[in-house]
């Protein structure tokens, strides 16, 4: 967790999502939780309460702008991430969102989280998927902290820590 905070604190400049590099990166992580899918989905879909399950998030502020829903995440290690809700589909138990701007060293980040029943009875499988680009849009030489590895490390860190704690919270441990 400390490593994750350090990683996020490395890039405190707000990053533009408009321009991105040529090669998208992906991260896909899954966890099995011993709790009913409905219970897990209730945590995941609650867009304005991410601090309830993600250990790096200190507080979440929900914002409505017309039809659109946003959240401002304030991180425990410092810095913020501003995200837009794309959709929260109860039938498929799928939440889609994107980063508008924030401290993660990524560009053009979009993501979804799904909750599925199984593999065992009363269990859920949560999958978190992200597609994004490194911060530096041009080709090498790439400034430190703006390369593909930095982007992948940060997102891997966020997903690993988040899913591990979501499991704890949902299992009531």
């Amino acid at each position, binding site marked *: 967790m400390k490593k994750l905070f350090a990683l996020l604190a490395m890039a405190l400049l707000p990053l533009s999502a408009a*321009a991105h590099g*040529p*090669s*998208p990166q*992906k991260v*896909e992580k899954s966890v099995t939780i011993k709790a009913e899918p409905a219970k897990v989905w209730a945590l995941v879909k609650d867009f304005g309460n991410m601090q309830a399950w993600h250990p790096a998030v200190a507080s979440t502020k929900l914002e409505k702008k017309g039809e659109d829903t946003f959240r401002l995440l304030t991180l425990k290690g410092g810095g913020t991430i501003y995200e837009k809700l*794309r959709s929260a589909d109860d039938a498929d138990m799928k939440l*889609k969102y994107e980063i508008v701007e924030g401290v993660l060293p990524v560009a053009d980040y*979009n993501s979804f989280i799904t909750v599925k029943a199984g593999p065992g009875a009363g269990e859920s499988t949560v999958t978190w*998927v992200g*597609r994004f680009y490194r911060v530096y*849009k*041009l*080709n090498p030489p790439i400034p430190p902290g703006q390369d593909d590895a930095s982007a992948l490390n940060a997102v891997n860190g966020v997903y690993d820590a988040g899913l591990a704690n979501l499991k704890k919270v949902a299992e009531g441990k």
Partner: protein
Amino acid sequence: MNPLLRLLGIILLCASASAWAGGHAYITNQGSDSVSVLDVTNHKVIATIAVGKAPVGVAVSARLGRVFVSNVEEQSLSVIDSNTQRVISTIAIKGAPVGVALSADHSQVFVANWFDDQILRFDSTSLQPLGSLSVGKAPAGMIASPDGQWLYVANRDSNDVAVINTKDWNISARVPVGAHPFGLTLRRDGKQLYSVNVYDNSLTIIDTASLQTSSVKVGEHPYCVALSPDQRRLFVTNTQGDDVTVIDVASRQVLTSIDVGGYPEGISASDQHIFVANWFDDTVTVIDPDTLNVISTISTGKQSRAFGQFIDTSLP
């Protein structure tokens, strides 16, 4: 005719048909630095070719027996011999080569150097550079008119399509389209051009004679478009919808959308089917353009992109 000569002629014809690049789809795999070669008839991977780092763009020439692949992170263009399925040459291209296309007569290959806002031209046989031109910001998809007169370029960050006169390489017109045009395709008769606008979730239809436009809403974050072999339907990949929007060309109405793999990017048609490269799933989906059913899913390399015309259906 001498029966022996006739027999020889038949043998030669068969030999060239079996090596015909039009029978193959060339899928660039960003994550495994390779190209998967698919047989478009039996839907099997027949070869995997190592290329440069993070290949994205592709253009196939059956008549040259060559395939051109842009390796964006390596800053190079790989040239593949489609008879042997081997890389025969690699051209260094400083910048960010993404889009690749051929001239109408296949004598030239064009490479869009995304971050330098340039199109580079090469002789497709000698591979010598022929020149470059500046067209707009972040040039992406390109396609040449069948009469050889025009080259169309989607300028992603200028939100327009440049019409370039290939006689003098001057820009003849810039047609405003939707936000972030990326993929392009053209009718075989050259009369209608289609641009996929990523940020607008739309397809722009351009009448190439009048340059009048109209647009059709498609799915989420669309990238590329292909026409059905009979030219009656358009298929648009929606990267964030994990589906393909099907449009009836005559009525300009959306007929349906077809679920494919995760983050579909490149799309091309063989003389029978539509092939879709799924970046997230490392697969290619094959669609029947008439029934609109998915008929096959083929495992490829990692992070398949296949940006460009990755099947050449013209006869060699």
